[in-house]
């Protein structure tokens, strides 16, 4: 399931739904990303997340479908927020339920790695009166490339 929304989400209800009533589920892996108030030595007052409505949903659905293609999964979930977010706020949640923990871990990490390099979101960090667009990290591209090269597949 894909949710792209401005409002906050209830982590526990969302993760619980991945296994509820399904006794085939042996493991649930979840990752949530939060707004930090310090990046390097720079304090962040708040952050604005811009995205490309339409393409975002399409892109996340493709990533989700690819995860189901690669691993035997029960359910998958991607929630990503946009708009203004404060330090400590939840930005993103990816979660996977599966019969086996290996698939749950691999698929969960795959989802966030691909989301980070493919989903059309852009972070604007705001401090005092200054706003600065966050620069993409090479380490994120490398994490994604390892999946494509098959290095991370178990």
């Amino acid at each position, binding site marked *: 399931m894909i949710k792209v929304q401005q409002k906050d989400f209830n982590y526990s209800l969302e993760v619980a739904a991945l296994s509820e009533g399904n006794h085939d589920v042996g493991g649930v892996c979840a990752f949530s*990303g939060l707004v930090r108030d310090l990046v390097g030595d720079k304090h962040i007052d708040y952050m604005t*997340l*811009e*995205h*490309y409505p*339409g*393409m975002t949903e*399409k*892109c996340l659905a493709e990533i989700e479908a690819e995860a189901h293609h690669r691993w035997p999964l029960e359910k998958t979930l991607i929630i*990503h927020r946009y708009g203004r977010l404060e330090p400590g706020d939840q*930005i*993103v949640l990816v979660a996977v339920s599966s019969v086996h923990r290996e698939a749950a871990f691999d698929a969960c990490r795959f989802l*966030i790695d691909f*989301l*980070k*390099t*493919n*989903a*059309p*979101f*852009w*972070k*604007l960090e705001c401090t005092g009166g200054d706003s600065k*667009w*966050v*620069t*993409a990290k090479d380490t*994120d591209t490398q994490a994604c490339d390892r999946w494509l090269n098959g290095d991370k597949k178990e």
Partner: protein
Amino acid sequence: MKILYFSWVRDRIDLGNEEIVLPENVTTVEQLVNWLQSKGDGYASAFADLSMIRVAVNQEHVKLGHPIGENDEVAFFPPVTGG
């Protein structure tokens, strides 16, 4: 054709999206970029370093050589930073 700009690409062009009539000799994203670069200082600044520009045609990531037509939706933006 509909063109969208995001993040600092939009900031530099000072425009979120626009409708253009595709010139006849423009059939790829790269040719569109060249044409846009001549539209003003904002565009020139936004497209100064193409290694920092990503493109989507009809909401799919594509390369600069991708073909385009009048009914396509083209978007320009920097590398994504969500998650």
